[in-house]
């Protein structure tokens, strides 16, 4: 992907063929192993793709009703303080958008808004890119976190606490970096308190939701709390007088605009927390048992179930329920233009098919590697090469995966199994190392060429992608190094 500048779909297919040939020729993989690992891969990919597709469908419904535009117009009226605008739009709003949409949406929506407010095109790309990094793993209805669960087979409740903690702490770095990128060190000193309050509130909300089984709305919840608190704080950080503009915000329209996401939050809370509803909707499950698979060299994958998919209580089902509610509310409010339905379906298919191809081919590649024992060999190499330094290296591997594949989800699909096995070999806490993987992937994804291109296109900086990337690399490099040190300390502190 880096050398040839290929997209995820092309590189994923090339990786699949490479893994196929190497596994057969060097690792003794048989044809049944290849076939069954493909079936497992499709099941794992479906678990993620269903969420990705339905999250984007809901976003398109909301966008087609003009709701994102309403929110985007309301936010800048709240304050004239440039750094506070950056915090509100480039941090809280971008994180909220990552919570609901992902796929470059935070950048595509907020960069033009910031340019309109007088930010330089470079700042308009850099600020939201860094701002939403902490919310990527639990964003897009937690599709990246779901990929972490699917790739390792570990339960979500086990993975959620450390993942949410590490990402929450990274959020502080994101806030300070956004403030610095907006108005330099004086702004960092001036807005120290709002940054600390917002970071603590957003991170805490994400942590509480994620650790209580509500990880699908953890980033959405964190971003929403950030927006509400940011709105309150703009009363004290107004900059130039904006009192009259503040009065002109149509709050009823803003509330209708948020209907889809309010419905989603309500549905997720109902389904996850009310036991009779949860068990009723969770009654229909796709569950497939796989036999033991072994290679010609004797590497054995034990028999077991593939990824279980609960049809009516899966995150994608909840997204579809929320989409139906949103369609009803917007339709009754007369917000849809003629041809809206066709445009929603068409853009959803056109955006999702290429990224789905990338995800499914990379999952298939990773599954062949895992079943043939290739991941195990790589893990042994990493364990021997890095030893005790591995906790510091771990987030860089996640970041590299996201940089290569353009997505935190893909990085987790490709590298989570490897990190899990390496942690196991070194006797380190697997949940901590996997938190490092996904946190590194989240931060690394914002500097991936695919996202930088989205930013450059929306900010009319085409041809200057290298310049954007250089600035982003400084901020993200510092953030990943900080996460690495944090993981190292936590690993030493917990004794493994």
């Amino acid at each position, binding site marked *: 992907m880096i050398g040839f500048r290929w997209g995820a779909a092309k590189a994923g297919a090339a990786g699949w063929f490479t893994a196929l040939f190497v596994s057969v020729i060097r690792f003794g993989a048989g*044809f049944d192993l290849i*076939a069954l690992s493909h079936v497992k891969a499709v099941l794992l990919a479906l678990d993620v793709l269903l969420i990705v597709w339905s999250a984007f469908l809901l976003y398109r419904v909301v966008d087609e009703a003009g709701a994102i535009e309403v929110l985007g117009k309301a936010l800048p009226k709240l304050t004239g303080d440039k750094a506070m605008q950056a915090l509100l739009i480039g941090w809280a709003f971008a994180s909220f958008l990552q919570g609901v949409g992902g796929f470059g949406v935070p950048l595509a929506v907020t960069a033009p808004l910031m340019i309109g407010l007088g930010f330089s095109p470079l700042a308009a790309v850099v600020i939201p890119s860094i701002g939403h990094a902490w919310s990527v793993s639990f964003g897009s209805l937690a599709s990246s976190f779901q990929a972490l669960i699917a790739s390792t087979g570990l339960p979500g409740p086990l993975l959620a606490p450390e993942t949410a903690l590490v990402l929450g702490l990274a959020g502080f770095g994101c806030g300070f970096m956004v403030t610095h990128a907006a108005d330099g060190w004086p702004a960092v000193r001036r807005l120290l308190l709002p940054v600390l309050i917002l970071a603590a509130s957003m991170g805490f909300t994400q942590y509480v939701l994620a650790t209580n089984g509500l990880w699908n709305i953890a980033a959405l919840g964190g971003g929403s709390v950030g927006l509400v608190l940011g709105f309150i704080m703009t009363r004290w950080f107004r900059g130039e007088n904006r009192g009259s503009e503040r009065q002109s915000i149509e709050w009823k329209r803003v509330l209708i605009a948020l209907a889809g996401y309010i419905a989603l939050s309500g549905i997720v809370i109902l389904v996850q927390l009310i036991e009779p509803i949860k068990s009723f909707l969770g009654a229909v499950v796709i569950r497939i048992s796989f*036999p033991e698979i072994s290679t010609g060299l004797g590497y054995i994958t034990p028999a077991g179930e593939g990824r279980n998919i609960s049809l009516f209580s899966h995150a994608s089902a909840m997204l579809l329920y929320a989409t139906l509610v949103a369609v009803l509310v917007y339709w009754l409010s007369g917000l849809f233009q003629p041809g809206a339905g066709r445009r929603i379906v068409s853009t959803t298919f056109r955006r999702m*098919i290429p990224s789905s*191809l*990338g995800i*499914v081919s990379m999952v298939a590649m990773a599954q062949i590697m895992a079943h043939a024992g290739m991941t195990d060999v790589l893990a042994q190499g990493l364990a021997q090469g890095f030893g005790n330094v591995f906790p510091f290296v771990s987030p860089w591997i996640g970041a590299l995966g996201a940089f290569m594949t353009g997505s935190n989800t893909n990085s987790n699909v490709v590298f989570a199994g490897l990190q899990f096995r390496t942690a196991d070999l070194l006797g380190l806490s697997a949940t901590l190392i996997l938190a490092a993987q996904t946190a590194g992937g989240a931060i690394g994804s914002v500097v991936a060429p695919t996202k930088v291109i989205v930013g450059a296109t929306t900010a009319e900086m085409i041809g200057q992608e290298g310049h954007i990337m250089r600035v982003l690399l400084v901020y993200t490099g510092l953030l990943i190094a900080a996460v690495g040190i944090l993981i190292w300390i936590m690993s030493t502190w917990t004794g493994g």
Partner: protein
Amino acid sequence: MDGWMKETSDFRARNKFPLQVVAFSMILLPTPLLFVSALSGLDIATWFLMGIVGVGMVISLWVS
């Protein structure tokens, strides 16, 4: 030869999305049958279905 390559390239550019849909379907849809054939030891069927998946991957590689 150049003309043929240009025509192929134009075809690919014109039909990128439908070809991606075809590739995606070829990778995904044989999966249930693949599971049954692999478990039942139906080698020829498994080869054939993996062939479909492989062609899907080739199309993805070519068109993306």
